[in-house]
């Protein structure tokens, strides 16, 4: 999937389909430690999140002290208070995912289809696609902030051209946050697109044009449908982390208080003002939305393709 292109080429071309061994004992011995780990540190935390989201203040009047409860209304309060943040998160995620797809598709097409004749170039380009992963996520986001800062060359030039008003800046705007989110998650989009375009049989494209389809039609009727698994996987792999991100939108980086997303609220409520129930309720809502999306995906392509 997303990281199949990492380091070595994935083995999908030469999968050996032989009957699997049936020793249940060995299989269980191999599986149980890891599954137990995920049960303890992935599943139980989610349960803990749901429990916390329903808690009520314990009556001591102290900040950050809560008792078990079953306060469903926590959810209504959270939706009422933070609906702009919820709407903004999904709007940003949608915009950044669409932009990421538009930017990544031609790139993945060139690497996966046009560059096939030169495997070394292909490998080099794949390394360049994942290169941003190797520099700290925070450092590269901060680099964009510096380049688009209020006194930067870019902003002063745009102001002198009249694109921006003299007192108008970029950092802290919706544009800047979407720009940062798009940039940061492009590798997650390009790699799955590459993986499915790399398998595309060029003879099918030739057949299309032999049958008098113009290039646009060949693309719409052959290339695009065949790369759909990559598109679905790529959009999912970018939309999910973007919806939960809070670094790009934070005021230390590309955002301001006007651009706060769900993640910024969860961080502030959980770590700074110790309002655990509201932070947990928001996280549960985000998780529920993402699970709905994933379920839709699983229905379409089955669980075996997930990994």
């Amino acid at each position: 999937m997303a990281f199949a292109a990492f380091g070595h080429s994935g083995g999908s071309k030469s999968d050996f389909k032989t009957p699997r061994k049936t020793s249940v004992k060995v299989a269980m011995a191999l599986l149980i430690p890891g599954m137990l780990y995920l049960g303890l540190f992935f599943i139980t935390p989610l349960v803990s999140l749901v429990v916390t989201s329903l808690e009520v203040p314990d009556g001591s009047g102290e900040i950050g002290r809560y008792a078990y409860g079953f306060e469903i209304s926590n959810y209504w309060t959270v939706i009422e208070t933070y609906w702009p943040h919820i709407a903004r998160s999904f709007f940003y995620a949608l915009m950044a995912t669409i932009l990421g797809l538009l930017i990544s598709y031609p790139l993945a097409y060139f690497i996966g289809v046009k560059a096939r004749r030169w495997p070394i170039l292909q490998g080099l380009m794949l390394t360049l696609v994942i290169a941003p992963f190797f520099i700290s996520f925070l450092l590269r986001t901060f680099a964009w902030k510096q380049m688009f800062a209020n006194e930067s060359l870019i902003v002063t030039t745009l102001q002198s051209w009249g694109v921006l008003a003299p007192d108008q800046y970029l950092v802290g705007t919706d544009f800047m946050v979407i720009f940062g989110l798009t940039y940061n998650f492009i590798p997650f989009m390009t790699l799955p697109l590459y993986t499915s375009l790399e398998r595309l049989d060029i003879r099918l494209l030739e057949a299309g044009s032999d049958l008098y389809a113009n290039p646009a039609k060949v693309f719409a009727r052959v290339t695009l449908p065949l790369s759909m698994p990559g598109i679905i996987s790529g959009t999912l792999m970018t939309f999910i982390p973007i919806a939960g991100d809070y670094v790009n939108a934070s005021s230390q980086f590309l955002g301001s208080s006007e651009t706060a997303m769900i993640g910024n609220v969860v961080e502030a409520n959980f770590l700074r003002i110790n309002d655990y129930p509201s932070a947990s309720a928001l996280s549960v809502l985000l998780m529920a939305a993402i699970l709905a999306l994933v379920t839709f995906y699983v229905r379409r392509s089955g669980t075996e393709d997930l990994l």
Partner: protein
Amino acid sequence: MRFALGKWALPLYTVLAFIYLLIPIAYTFVFSFNDSFKSNISWRGFTFNNWLNVCGEPGVCDAFGTSVLIGVVSTVLATILGTMIAIALVRYEFKARSQVSLLLFLPMATPEIVLGAGLASQFFNMGVTKGLGTVIVAHVMFCLSFVVVTVKARVASLDPALEEAGSDLYATPAQVFRKVTLPLLTPGIMSAALLAFALSFDDFIITNFNAGPVDTFPKFVYTAAAKGIPAEANVIGSAVFLVAIIAVVLVQLNSARKQKRLLAGK
């Protein structure tokens, strides 16, 4: 003319896309040589001082060391657990296959903020003090699935006939694993470990929720960002980038050479 333009549009676009992808890396690298005073915002002249005296900035080297320690321990644990699961998934038949796949997929499909807040609320409810241990527990959790995906691709491309040949020659299952399976899996396991380390080293969101007072490199950068990131942080970021890129290129060249040798052998 139109034809020529069409032919060059895509390569030209690719070059522009790569420039766009690499700009922040170049920026970070260039500003690691800035003769900065306190905040590293405007260009004040070229110097090697930041590189020669990286630890001059208080806290940055400690944070880096902590990140490396967390990265190594988490990588080893996640790689062992993940490789075992990958072998089980490809080589063994069992009933709960789709449930196992789903359980492995879900952590990758969960936003980091939910993973981070969930673990933090569990530690809080259980009264566990946050520190190095809680960060490592968190990192092993989110690296595990990525290790499984990477190693699984390798196990799937491994010809079972090689293992059968081993047992036909009277090797015990343990010997087959040690002498045949493991050496063949090594490149996949190495890639997985590299990926796990990269994920752990660069993680900020989950770490921020579960580290308590422990300062990792990303946490240091996040805190520093409010008043400007010191050039020493750029030095560490650039150095890590160079080491990682060299490691990946070496792995690629190595596998290309092996493939060539394999083809020549046939």
